[in-house]
């Protein structure tokens, strides 16, 4: 493993940058990428002292889309940091590899992270906290703050630093160890399954066309189509969006533009409801 240029201080600064700014400029086009740009921007001098061109490339390669669950998923910026540091130190780390590892991990960590953090851990703590505060006591509030931050700050710090260490050797692990790609394949499958669930749970497309006769609903198109398969419009919408983004290389903004047109037309044609 090549020597890296990472100091404790750099890691700490990057960690804080990530933890604070991950969603600061959140939008559907690049999502959390601006925060990565900031994170690397703040240590660009440490990595490539005086070399503006390298610094610029470093920042530029983190401009494209990045999104994951920010806190359990903070291992990914950690890995990216580790890899960049090794690269800066002259290690044999290609920029493709850095992009590949980010792409490989962000989906699974989004799915799993959302299911575990706001989906499981937080509601349990809040349930207890609400119990303790039911009468207006502050106990539950302090309990929640203490336990939640007491657990999550060390956990995220551990994940991030773990990522940094792994990152430095990730190249070898992936190239020299075929286990890694089985792990990524498997993670992708969990990720996809959870994303399927989450799409079903959080996206909505309500077909509103109904035909009412004498006060009785004769045809309720939405109900009929959901009767063929529950939430079928959302499923088709998900596949359609995937098709546009993945096969037609549409940008997020273009897709959203299409959504807007469909929303306006659908609403005034009476086919879509809120």
């Amino acid at each position, binding site marked *: 493993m090549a020597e890296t240029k990472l100091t404790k201080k750099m890691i700490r600064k990057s960690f804080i940058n990530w*933890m*604070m700014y991950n969603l*600061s400029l959140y939008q559907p*086009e690049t999502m959390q990428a601006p925060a990565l740009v900031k994170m690397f921007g703040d240590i660009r001098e440490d990595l490539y002292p005086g070399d503006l061109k390298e610094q610029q490339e470093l920042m530029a390669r983190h*401009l494209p889309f990045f999104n994951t669950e920010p806190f359990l998923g903070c291992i990914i910026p950690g890995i990216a940091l580790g890899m960049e540091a090794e690269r800066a130190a002259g290690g044999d780390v290609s920029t493709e590899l850095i992009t590949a590892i980010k792409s490989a991990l962000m989906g699974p960590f989004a799915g799993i992270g959302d299911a575990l953090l706001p989906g499981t851990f937080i509601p349990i703590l809040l349930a207890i906290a609400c119990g303790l505060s039911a009468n207006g006591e502050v106990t539950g509030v302090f309990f929640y703050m203490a336990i939640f931050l007491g657990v999550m700050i060390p956990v995220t710090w551990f994940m991030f630093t773990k990522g940094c260490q792994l990152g430095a050797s990730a190249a070898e692990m992936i190239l020299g160890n075929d286990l890694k790609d089985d792990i990524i394949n498997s993670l992708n499958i969990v990720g996809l399954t959870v994303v399927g669930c989450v*799409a079903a749970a959080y996206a909505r497309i309500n077909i509103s066309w109904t035909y009412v006769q004498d006060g009785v609903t004769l045809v309720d198109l939405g109900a009929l189509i959901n009767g063929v398969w529950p939430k079928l419009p959302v499923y088709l919408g998900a596949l359609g969006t995937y098709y546009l983004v993945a096969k037609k290389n549409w940008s997020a903004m273009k897709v959203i533009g299409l959504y807007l047109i469909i929303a306006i037309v659908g609403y005034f044609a009476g086919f879509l409801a809120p």
Partner: protein
Amino acid sequence: MTLLQAILISLLGYLTYIHVPFLGGGLIGWYCVGRPLVSAFFIGLILGDVTTAIQLGVYIQLIFIGLVTPGGSISPDMNLATYVALPIGVVTGLDAGATTALAITVASIANVMAAPNFAATMIPVNYQKKLVADGKLAAATKVPIWGNGVKFLFRFIPTFVSVYYGQVAIEWIVANSPQALIDVMTIFGNPMSLVGFAILMKLMIKSATDIIYFTVGFALFAALGADMVTVLVFGLALALIEFKVGRARKGA
């Protein structure tokens, strides 16, 4: 409510919004101080009645206890609901039922702002891109700091107006908003999270058959009524099988 109190509350509302960095980021802001129960405590401090605030906070918290915001879908708008309904509830002495009703009203119409908020955020994002391209790296690094000002506008102002002018004002706003606009913006926002999911799917789908896994997760939720944790469990089982098959392929 004094002007100062309204400002402080609206500021705290902004600071605990999911996208805001200045309270240490989402772990401390959104996921900790931003939970209605915890917010209630701080709102109570500002208003000088912690006990009532927490009592109402428990009610609002319980509505949103399972809120997950995958792929940027922040709906319903728990943050606005909390920072509008809770202070009004405390100050005008609403009971729990009226407070939660108010919270739900606020949470559901607030979606109208989601799309414009995202659109406006594109401005600093594109500017950051340009700065990097132009080699203005120090400036590019700072964009995520001041760029969040966009979100300030979209969060502080509506919160402040609603809180300061109170329940009557909210009801006036609700009653006088063009229904068509609210509806279209809601329809527009409804499938928005699919964009984020599609980008993730693009990364995770290696061959067309992988769509089956997405569909299994979809079917488990939509057709069998499984919750997210259960889907995670089944996803792990499928992943374990994939892993074993991958190992077997290599004779390991």
